């Protein structure tokens, strides 16, 4: 019989291996799943995991998906390490997009745009995300309201707000009544960084955010204070680190990055405001953050895997006729497999006859 035995000390090896094992387990589950619905499992898995990485076009599309996931996940890593459970990044993403979009629609005259005005729009996105996150932070700070519930519920408020706006004041007057805004003019669309692809500078911003996030957590005193507050609140009190400051810092950083991701999405691949600007990036990024071990460099790898899953999910819809839920299923299996594999960090498997 296989038995779990506690290890004397956590295994450093398993801490690294566990995410890889989780990816393999996810593939194994996918194999069984495709088999069960009567598809050729090898061909289906290759559509899911290999097809997205075929050629420059494939890699650049993965990069397009990776940018928002990575940006949001870096912010969430800070947040979760401070024990602030902001699971409403989706809402902050949407409000960031609204803020950037509304600003662009206000100033866009078909002839302007360019670096500075686009930067201004991106900044509006950051501020929008921060504003939405600060609602949660304030309610937590002032009334000790649970940030998990508040931030989650604000996601739905944000989505309804977006829907209301694109059905109303932000609707394209020449759009035949479709609930969407005008297309932004070229001056407000992020340029492609590789000719012939849709890859936009958002991926560079995301990688930069990951580097800064790493520098903040691993090297700065403010990052140290944030993490002590998450690991040992009593020690943080003893040391005189303010838990309120940690709360605000974590919420504003993650809200700002989610808002930036929202702004990049509408100024990049989408090019306008529509009621469905996110395929659940804000929620998927929670998985990305945990699979990446809440480490700003680790989330680079996990956001890559998650982006492949998104594209693979789209491909298996068009090529294999799988339902759209397939992406969510794979994301869920991945998180579940990771949690299961993490048991092996503190325990080992032993064969006991």
């Amino acid at each position: 019989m296989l038995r779990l035995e506690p290890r004397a000390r956590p295994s450093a090896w398993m801490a690294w291996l566990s995410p890889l094992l989780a990816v393999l387990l996810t593939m194994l589950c996918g194999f069984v799943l495709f088999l069960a619905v009567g598809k050729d499992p090898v061909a289906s898995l290759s559509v899911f995991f290999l097809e997205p990485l075929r050629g420059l076009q494939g890699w650049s599309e993965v990069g397009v998906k990776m940018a928002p996931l990575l940006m949001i996940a870096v912010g969430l890593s800070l947040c979760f390490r401070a024990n602030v459970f902001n699971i409403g990044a989706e809402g902050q993403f949407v409000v960031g997009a609204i803020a950037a979009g509304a600003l662009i629609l206000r100033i866009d005259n078909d002839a302007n745009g360019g670096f500075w005005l686009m930067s201004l729009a991106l900044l509006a996105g950051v501020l929008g995300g921060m504003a939405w996150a600060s609602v949660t932070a304030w309610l937590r700070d002032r009334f000790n309201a649970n940030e998990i519930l508040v931030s989650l519920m604000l996601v739905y408020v944000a989505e309804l707000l977006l829907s209301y706006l694109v059905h109303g004041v932000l609707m394209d007057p020449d759009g035949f009544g479709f609930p969407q805004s005008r297309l932004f003019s070229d001056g407000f669309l992020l340029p492609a960084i590789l000719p012939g692809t849709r890859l936009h500078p958002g991926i560079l911003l995301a990688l930069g955010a990951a580097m800064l996030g790493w520098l903040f957590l691993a090297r700065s005193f403010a990052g140290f204070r944030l993490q002590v507050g998450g690991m040992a609140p009593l020690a943080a009190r003893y040391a005189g680190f303010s838990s309120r400051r940690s709360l605000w810092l974590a919420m504003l950083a993650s809200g700002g990055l989610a808002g930036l991701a929202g702004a990049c999405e509408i100024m990049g691949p989408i090019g306008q405001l529509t009621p469905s600007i996110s395929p659940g990036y804000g929620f998927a990024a929670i998985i990305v953050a945990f699979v990446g071990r809440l480490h700003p460099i680790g989330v680079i790898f996990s956001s890559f895997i998650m982006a492949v899953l998104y594209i693979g999910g789209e491909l298996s819809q068009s090529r294999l006729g799988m339902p759209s839920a397939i992406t969510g299923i794979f994301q869920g299996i991945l998180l579940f497999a990771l949690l299961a594999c993490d048991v092996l960090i503190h325990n080992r498997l032993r064969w006991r006859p």
Partner: protein
Amino acid sequence: MSPRLALQQITKRYPSVVANDAVDLVVQPGQIHAVLGENGAGKSTLMKIIYGVVRPDAGSIFWNGAQAHIASPQVARELGIGMVFQHFSLFDTLTVAENIALGLPAGTRMDELARRIADTARQYGLDLEPERHVHTLSVGERQRVEIVRALLGRPQLLILDEPTSVLTPQAVQRLFETLRQLAGEGCSILYISHKLDEIRSLCQACTVMRAGKVTGVCDPRHETASSLSRLMTGAEPPALVHRDAQPGKPLLSVRDLTLERSHPYATALSGISFDVRQGEILGLAGVSGNGQQELLSVLSGEDNRAQAQAILLDGQPIGRKSVAWRRARGMGLVPEERLGRGAVPELTLAQNMLLSHQGGATVRHGMVRRRAIASLAHGIIERFGVRAAGPHATAASLSGGNLQKYIIGREVTRTPRVLLVAQPTWGVDVSAAARIRTELLALRSAGCAVLVISEELDELFEISDRLIVMAKGRVSPPISRTAATRDQVGRWMSGLWPENGGVGAC
């Protein structure tokens, strides 16, 4: 007659340590048998094996001459083994009778149970009211609930784990009378302790453990404290040199400090006044739970609800200042809980330096100076004899005593002007405790004002220059160590001190 309990070659291994290594133990009927050893010697594991909480890897247990397999505490109770744990498992919001009923079969009649509780309590001189809610009881009364709970099962063997650490000297004497009466009726008692004097006055036999092994079996009434200590630690207790203090001006003053409690089970502080002077150690005695925690967080700044004027640092009102503000002006704190408060378990010793060293030497332009904190931590490991793999060992990997040496070292190297220390040697082995006390005395002689909060009177008498006693949220007038007697301090621990100075006040 066969012995009540006999253990043969009991062995229990954990992944990183052998907790019990071929331990033999024989307890006769009606005998009060001490198990003596330092923290980590394996006493608690052994008791858990006897009570069925932990299964041994090897060895056998004989109960009244017959081999027994004690698979669970349920089996142990059926055999007639009762246990009083060091940490009570009582629900604050329930009454005494309800708490005891929780361990009994469903359908027990409450009125009958209350009568049995009252009868048993009376029989053994344990003053207890079954209808009282537990949160209104003192620590000593809570212990009586646990003892009565164990006695209701009519045990033939009663195990007590460090029962006196929470009691006043007078309450200890009452407990001893109860235990002697029980033993006289034929009940065997296993008495776990590291206090040599108690064992010598109470027990008829003693098994001494060190590092999981039995190092001796003796009659403690014929041993001296130093011979027992040698068996326990393998060395003579180091002697402490205590020079007289030359106290200067008051550095930390508390003036008529009164504070509402912050939650229902906290203790309110009322009318507290005292001074801690430059170059002295002021000892604060008292049974835990009488407001020490609350006082400490008010002094350190973790709780800054006090009136500004109620606490003065060098004459300046600081009652509302933050922890960081006070630390920057020379205050230091060694908290009671080491892991999780005094140090973050997952972080390295180097990183833990930043909890109190937050000046330009360790942080520059907002960035951590990693080489500087590592060399600071290295210096503390060397100077204070901390047994650790190095500055990059995690705090959780250190034993309690070594972590305490590190934390004391970390605070001492800041050369604080005022140092607050809670339970400096709680759960620390004898040699580390001596080291810590020596460092505190050295700090005092260098002109620091030190406030030591401790439950151990021996310790306070050893290192303090003056003593104050805390009871029910109030603090007694100060008394000089040389004028104080243990008996007097023990009485004061119940709140019975003369209101206006009185004998020996200074």
